[in-house]
């Protein structure tokens, strides 16, 4: 059963208005993210860097470091949250998350293996390997989780995902230890961080993520029906196999694209859909766009917090999401899941 109860049924106008508000909040946190950093740069300088660029160091920092960083956080947060929401709806598993189910680990292993065996050093090609790895891991975890009586259950799927993650990440570690060059190549990427990504890489992943987001939004109504259960959806005349396949493609595009950009970042896809569902109810036509915005806001904030907490040290954003998402996951398992 899909999880959280909802006590409010909001009207469409209210929900549309909410989307506009969320968009405003997102804009605000992006501005905050650009304003705060290791170097103190005033708001006026930031403004000037964006609109009357003069090539000074400060302008360079804003244009090549801070703006890409904020935009990467927006993209990665949005796509992971939407991927998580689609997974939760389609598998009716409140604990679904691209990180927990091993899909991000699959993408990471594929990239590391590509760098090691093919000697690929162009970040641009990362994207395709990440997609392939994500797709493979998704198929394996689904097959493992649906084995046995009662088909796919949240607990089985999640534990299978954990096992797969353990296997894939130990293989990744093995490769990294074998090959110092690969380690140096991908080390910064593997920590799950939005720092230091240039605009070129972002443009590479952008089309995939956009297609994924668009596909997810188009699937919204069908996911709502499917979240009522396979039998109900069939009874309502849905061709569930097609919807599942389309949903899987969307998840792979979004999760693969996000990992290619930022490396494995966990728990965004878990936490955000739950938070969103609490406010907007169980209709995925609304859950999906809200998840995209909320995920983006969340990751930008997590990145800012990671920069501020241990100043001048920086914590990778993956650590921040794990610190928020881990307790939430335990809460779900402890208080919300019954056998």
């Amino acid at each position, binding site marked *: *059963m899909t*999880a*959280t*109860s909802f006590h409010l049924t909001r009207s469409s106008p209210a929900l549309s208005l909410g989307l506009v508000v969320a968009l405003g909040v997102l804009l605000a946190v992006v501005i905050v993210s650009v304003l705060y950093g290791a170097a103190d740069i005033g708001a006026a300088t930031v403004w000037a860097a964006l609109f009357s660029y003069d090539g000074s160091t400060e302008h360079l920092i804003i244009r090549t470091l801070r703006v890409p960083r904020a935009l990467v956080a927006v993209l990665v947060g949005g796509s992971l949250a939407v991927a998580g929401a689609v997974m939760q709806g389609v598998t009716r598993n409140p604990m679904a998350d691209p990180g927990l189910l091993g899909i991000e680990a699959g993408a990471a292993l594929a990239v590391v293996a590509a760098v090691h065996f093919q000697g690929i050093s162009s970040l641009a090609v990362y994207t395709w390997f990440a997609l392939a790895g994500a797709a493979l891991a998704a198929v394996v975890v689904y097959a493992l989780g649906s084995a046995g009586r009662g088909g796919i*259950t949240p*607990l089985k799927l999640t534990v299978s995902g954990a096992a797969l993650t353990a296997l894939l990440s130990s293989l990744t570690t093995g490769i990294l230890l074998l090959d110092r060059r690969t380690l140096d190549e991908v080390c910064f990427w593997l920590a799950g961080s939005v720092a230091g990504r240039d605009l070129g890489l972002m443009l590479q992943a952008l089309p995939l993520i956009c297609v994924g987001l668009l596909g997810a939004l188009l699937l919204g109504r069908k996911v709502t029906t499917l979240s009522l259960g396979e039998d109900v959806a069939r009874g309502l005349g849905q061709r569930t196999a097609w919807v599942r396949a389309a949903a899987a493609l969307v998840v792979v595009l979004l999760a693969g694209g996000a990992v290619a950009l930022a490396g494995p970042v966990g728990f965004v896809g878990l936490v955000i859909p739950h938070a969103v569902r609490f406010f907007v109810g169980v209709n995925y036509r609304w859950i999906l766009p809200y998840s995209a915005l909320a995920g983006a806001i969340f990751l930008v904030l997590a990145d800012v917090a990671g920069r501020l907490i241990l100043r001048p040290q920086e914590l990778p954003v993956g650590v921040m999401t794990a610190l928020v998402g881990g307790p939430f996951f335990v809460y779900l398992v402890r208080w*919300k*899941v*019954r*056998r």
Partner: protein
Amino acid sequence: MGEICTERLTLAYDERAVVAGLDIVIPTGRVTALVGPNGCGKSTLLRGLARLLKPRGGSAYLDGRSIWRMPTRELARQLGILPQAPVAPEGLTVRDLVAQGRYPYHGWLNRWSEADEEAVARALDITGMVDLAHRPVDALSGGQRQRAWIAMALAQETKVLLLDEPTTYLDMHHQLEVLHLLRRLNREEGRTVVLVVHNLNHAARYSDHVVALSDGKVVAAGTPQEVVTSEVLREVFGVEAHILSDPDTGVPLCIPYALCENSNVRAPSMDSFAAPHTGHIHV
């Protein structure tokens, strides 16, 4: 010997008192059946008698001593309990399971003696499990499995044996198999047997003493003839029933046919059927 009684026994889960201020005496050397509707406190009472549940007030007594004042091992040598639907670890053989019944007789270093060996052999013999002794418990049929667990409790060599719904999940044949075994243990070995059963006809047929509970209180206690009556059935279960007499043994047989008009039996608590809208995820 082996006399159990309670004095103002109060048992509770969290804040909800299930049994409040109960006084009850279990006759020595007899088979006693505890009956009542779901949630009436019969299993809770059994757990209280076996020291599985700490009372909020009052106490249970074995031969005049409070069971909470006795050392755990000493109590375990005098009183055995078989909980409802126990599950044996995978691959554990019947013999290994029965050997666990000797636990209260062992110390730090002396862990196996001739007496242990004999007790296990006897328990296997009485329950007819000798031929199955080498088989894993999880590979047995439901009735055989229940017999294996009873054998474990027998190897404990206690005067008193408490059993929580030993016939649940068994088919008719295996239910009778277990009940026959329990009565034989009582008749041939003189053990005091207390069991929780759902089927009133089984209670009437296989026990000497029946205690009917409702809402944590004793409604009627006595011989099957005294307890299995239309009045008690109406009050305890909220059903109208014909009471016949078994042509062979003369024990009462009940045939329920209707629900009472103004039943004071409360409906089963809805907590146990938590619906999806409560926000819980059923897996």
